[in-house]
C-alpha cells in the first residue's frame, strides 16, 4: 500500500518529525532508570564474577580539588541499570557476525516497539511468565507484531522503588516476571522481532534458571542475533503499538552491552 511518506521527500519526512516534536504532536518519553548507587544490580551466586554496581565519586565541586568546576568519576558494569544486551553477551550468540555493541548495525537502534501489558497478572504473581496466549491476545486487539520490532513486557515492576522489592529475593532465589521459553521461540521464529525488553532486572524471569533451557530469553534471542533491554520504566506511558524506540548503547570495543538512555517517540494523547 502506498503511504503518504512514500510521496514525501526524506527532507520533508525528517522536517515533519522535527516540527511535530516542537509542537508536541510527537513526544519523547524517557524509559530509563536514573543511574545511582542505590539502584540494585544483578546478583549472581558469590562464586561467580559479579557485575559492578553503579558507583560515583566527586573529582571536585568548586572546591580545593578544582575551584571552578564540578565533575565526577564513576564506575559500573556493562549490565548496570537500564541497559542493552548484545548477542555476544550469551554463549548462544558468541559466534554471530556484528554481535557486539560496537558492530551492531546502527539502524537497529531506532525501531518500533510493541508493549504487551501483563501488569494485572504480575500483581498477583511476581513469577508470571508471558505466554504465547498473551501474545495472541495482544495481536487480536493491536494487530500482528511487525518484523524488526521490539517486544516490551509491561509489568509495572519499575514502580517498585524499594530495592529489596525490586530484586524480590527469598531463600529460593529471585522472583521477577519474564517470558516463557515457548513465547521467546515464537517471537524469534514466527515474528522475527528485534529484541525483548523488560522492566525487571533481567529479560528472563527471576526463576529463569529453572526453565528449559535455562534463561530462554537470553538463549534464544541472542542465539538468533537479537537484543535485550532491561530495567525499563514508564512502559505504562507508551501506546500498545506505534511507539518508536531509540536505544543506542555505548560504542564499547567488543562490548556485551552497556547502560544507555532509552527513549520512545510517541504521538500526543488524543
Amino acid at each position: 500500500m502506498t503511504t503518504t511518506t512514500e510521496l514525501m521527500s526524506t527532507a520533508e519526512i525528517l522536517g515533519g518529525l522535527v516540527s511535530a516534536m516542537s509542537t508536541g504532536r510527537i513526544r519523547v518519553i524517557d524509559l530509563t532508570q536514573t543511574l545511582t548507587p542505590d539502584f540494585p544490580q544483578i546478583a549472581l551466586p558469590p562464586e561467580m564474577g559479579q557485575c559492578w554496581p553503579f558507583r560515583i565519586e566527586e573529582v571536585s565541586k568548586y572546591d580545593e580539588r578544582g575551584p571552578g568546576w564540578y565533575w565526577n568519576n564513576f564506575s559500573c558494569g556493562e549490565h548496570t541499570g537500564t541497559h542493552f544486551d548484545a548477542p555476544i553477551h550469551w554463549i548462544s550468540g558468541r559466534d554471530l557476525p556484528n554481535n557486539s555493541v560496537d558492530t551492531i548495525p546502527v539502524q537497529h537502534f531506532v525501531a518500533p516497539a510493541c508493549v504487551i501489558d501483563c501488569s494485572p497478572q504480575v500483581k498477583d504473581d511476581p513469577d508470571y511468565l508471558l505466554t504465547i496466549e498473551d501474545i495472541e491476545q495482544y495481536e487480536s486487539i493491536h494487530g500482528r507484531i511487525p518484523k524488526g520490532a521490539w517486544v516490551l513486557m509491561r509489568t509495572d515492576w519499575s514502580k517498585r522503588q524499594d530495592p529489596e522489592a525490586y530484586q524480590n529475593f527469598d531463600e529460593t532465589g529471585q522472583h521477577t516476571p519474564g517470558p516463557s521459553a515457548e513465547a521467546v521461540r515464537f517471537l524469534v521464529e514466527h515474528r522475527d522481532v528485534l529484541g525483548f525488553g523488560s522492566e525487571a532486572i533481567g529479560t528472563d524471569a527471576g526463576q529463569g534458571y529453572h526453565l528449559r533451557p535455562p534463561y530462554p530469553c537470553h538463549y534464544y534471542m541472542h542465539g538468533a542475533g537479537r537484543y535485550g533491554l532491561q530495567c525499563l520504566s514508564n512502559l505504562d506511558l507508551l501506546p500498545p503499538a506505534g511507539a518508536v524506540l531509540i536505544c543506542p548503547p555505548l560504542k564499547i570495543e567488543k562490548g556485551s552491552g552497556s547502560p544507555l538512555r532509552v527513549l520512545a517517540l510517541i504521538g500526543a494523547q488524543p
Partner: protein
Amino acid sequence: MTMPLMRPKRKNPVLRTRQMNLPPWARGRVALGITAAAAEGRFELQTCEDCGTVQYPPREACHKCLSPRLHWREQSGEGELLSSTTLYHSNDLFFRERLPWRLGLVHLDAGPTLMVHLHGEVGDAPTRVRVGARLDRAGQAVLIGFPNEGSPHMADDKMLREMTSDPKFRKVLVTDGKTEVGQAIVRALVKAGADIVWVGHAEPWKKMGGLDDITALPQVTLVPLDLTNGRSVSELAGEIGGKVDIVINNAEVHRSFGIGARRGTDVAKAEMDINYFGLLRLAQEFGPALKGRSADGVTGSTAWVNLLSIYALSNFPPHGTFSASKAAAHSLAQCLRAEMRPAGIRVINLFPGPIDDEWNQHTPPPKLGASTLANAIVKALRDGVEDVYPGDVAQEWLERWRDNPKILERELAAGGG
C-alpha cells in the same frame, strides 16, 4: 569499693563539648618498649641478661653491671606500696581537668621502684599491690597499681576508664551485621552494656539469615551501610556520626584466590574495595566526629576497631589477594592510629587466624568461632590494648613471624599453615 558507673544524664546541647588535652606523650625510644608490650596487654621491663637486674626507668645499660644486654621480659608486677598521694593541683592540662588523681610509689618485688597511677581500691601504704601497664589516652604506656583482689566494678574506676574503651553505656557502630561474626559482635556488645548498637548492612535484597534475630534486640538499630558506596558512608555519618562512640569495622570480602587461580582483577578489586577502601571511606567520614567527642564525659567517643587478619603480616598464598588487601588495610590502620592519636582515640587492630566461616571451609581446624572473636573484641575494648592476635593460629603465626619473617614466608609458600 569502686562506685559502679551510672548511665550519665543526657548532655546539655548548648554547652561546648570538652575537647581532649592529651597527657604527656613524650617517651624516649628505649622507654617505648613498655608501650610496645602494653599495646598487646603485657607489662614488661628490661632484665639484664648477664646479672639478672630488672631495670626501671628503661635505659641503655644495666645500672648494676653495665651490660648492654637488656631484654624485655614480662613482669608479675607484684610489689609493695611504699607511699601514695592524691594530686589536688597540676600544671598539666589533662590531669588538671581530672583532679583529684591518685598516685603511688611501688617497690616491685623484682627490684625497682615505680611511680604509678593508683587504682581507687588500693589501700594506704604499706600494702601489697600488683602493677600492670596500660595505654593512656596519648597511646603511651603508664604503670598502674592494682589491688590484688578487685571488686566486681573495679573496671569503673575513674582513672582506669581513662585508659580503656569499655563499651558500657556507649553507642557503637558495627559495620556489617550480615555475617555470623557481625552478629556475634552485636550480641557481645549488648551483653557488655552498650546503649545503642547501630548495625550496618549492604545489599538488603541479599538475605543471609540471622539479621532478624539481632534486629529484635532493643539496643539494635539496622542502618544501611555499603562501604563500597561513598555516598552511603557519608549519609550514615551525617545521620549518626556525631553520636558514635566506638566504630567496629568488621565488614570484609574474603575470597580464596592467589594470583593464578583466578583470572582477572575483579575479585581482588572487590576485596580491596571493602577491606582497604572501605576502611578509607569509613575513616574519612566517621573520623572527624569521633575525634571531636573523645573527652565528652564519661561515655565519650573512645575507640576504632579494625578486623584485619593474621594474613596481613605475612601473605597466605592460597588466599593471596585477600592477604594483600588485609596488609593494605593494616598499613592504613597504622595511618589511622597516628591521625586519631591527637584526639586520644584508641585504634584496635585484630589479627585473627582463619575464622570458622564458609570462606575458610577447606582450612583445617583450629578455626576461630564467631563468638570467640566477638569476645576478644569486647575484651580488647575493656583492656584498652591496641593489637590483638586471637586464637591459636594467630598466636603461633605471630610467634613465627617475630622470630623470623623470612622463614614464615617460606613455610607459608610451601603450603604449611
